[in-house]
C-alpha cells in the first residue's frame, strides 16, 4: 500500500500520500466530515447499507487458540522467526480483508468489474 519508505527504520515505517485500499478510503470519507441533517437531506440508495457493512468485522478463528498456537510456534532461539510473515497475515490483516469483502459484496453486486480487478490484484 505504501509507495515510499525512508529513514533508518524504513522497514517499520510506511508512508502513502493517499489511501489505496477500500478500507483506507472508507476511513477517510465515511462518517468523517460534515454531516447534513437527515431531515433536510435526500437519501441515496446504497449508502445506509454501505455504512453498516463497512463496520462488519468478520470473526477470525478463536482468538485464544490462535494465540496458543502462535506462541507454541515461536522459535525463541531465533530473532527472526520463520513463520513471521504467515502469522502476521493470518492475524490483523485477515480482519481487514474480511471487512473489505463485506463492503465490496454490497457495493458491487453481480460480478462488477471492480471486484474482478480486486481479485486479480491480490
Amino acid at each position: 500500500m505504501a509507495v515510499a519508505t525512508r529513514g533508518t527504520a524504513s522497514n517499520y515505517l510506511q508512508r502513502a500520500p493517499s489511501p489505496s485500499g477500500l478500507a483506507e478510503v472508507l476511513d477517510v470519507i465515511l462518517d468523517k466530515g460534515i454531516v447534513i441533517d437527515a431531515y433536510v437531506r435526500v437519501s441515496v440508495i446504497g449508502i445506509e447499507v454501505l455504512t453498516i457493512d463497512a463496520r462488519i468485522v468478520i470473526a477470525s478463528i478463536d482468538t485464544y487458540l490462535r494465540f496458543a498456537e502462535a506462541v507454541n510456534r515461536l522459535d525463541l532461539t531465533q530473532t527472526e522467526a520463520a513463520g513471521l510473515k504467515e502469522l502476521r497475515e493470518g492475524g490483523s490483516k485477515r480482519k481487514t480483508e474480511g471487512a473489505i469483502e463485506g463492503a465490496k459484496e454490497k457495493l458491487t453486486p453481480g460480478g462488477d468489474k471492480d471486484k474482478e480487478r480486486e481479485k486479480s490484484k491480490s
Partner: protein
Amino acid sequence: MTSTAAPTTSALFIYGVVAAGAIPPIERQGVADTAIYAVTDGGVAALVSALPPGELRIRRRDLLSHLRVLEDAFAEGTVVPCAFGMVLSSEEAVRREFLEPRRDELLALLRRLEGHAQLNVRVAYDEDVVLQEIVAGDPTIAQLREQTRGISEDAGYSLRMQLGELVAAALGSARERDGQLILERLASKAADIAVEDPGDDVLKASFLVAPKDADAFDREIERVAEEQAPRLQIEVVGPLPPSAFATLERGAWES
C-alpha cells in the same frame, strides 16, 4: 421546509465547502461521472455535482471520486470535507438548508483548518516479536508454553486455552500501554487528534497537523519508528483533507 420534496432529477451531491472563489474549478468528475461546480452563498461555496435522475447505485469508484475531489480541492487551498453521501435536492436547498444557516460555523472551520493536513496513523505489532517479549516476561506463560508443546491438541486443550487466554490478556495490556505512549508522543506535534478503536492493532488515529508543525510531526514519527523497531510497524497515510476534524455542532439543525 418543503424543498426536501423536490424531484430527484436535480439532486446535488455535496463534497465539501471552500471559501468562495478560493480555488480554481475542479476538472475531475465526481460521483456517477458528474461535473463538479460550486454553489456560492455569502462567502462560502459548496462543491457539488448534479446526480443523474433515478436510482443511484454507489460503487467503489464513486467512493474514490468523492475522496479525489476533496484531494483536488485540498491541493489548491483549504476545504472542509463533507461525509460521503450528503445530498440535497437543489441549489436552492444547498444555499437555504446548508450554507446560509451554517455560514458562521463553516467560516470558523475554514479558518481553523487553514493549511492544516490530516495524517492517518496506524500502528501494529510485529506479533512474533511482541509474543516473544510476552513469553520471556511471564514465567507462567513460558511454563504453559513448554507444557503444551508437542502434546496432542485434544489432550492439551484446556492448557492451550489457558495459555491463549493469558497471552491475549498480556497482548491487550501491552497494546494499551504502547498505544497511549505513541499517541502522546505524536499528539504533542499535532493541533488535534481523533482516536479510533484500533481493533487488533496498537493505535489507529488521525492527527491534524499545522503547516509549521509538519516537519516536527514527521520527525517524531520517524523517531518512534526507529526506537520501536522491530516490534512496531507504523503506517502513515497523508497529507489528507482534514475530514476527521470537520464537524458541525450537533442540534443546531433543529433551530
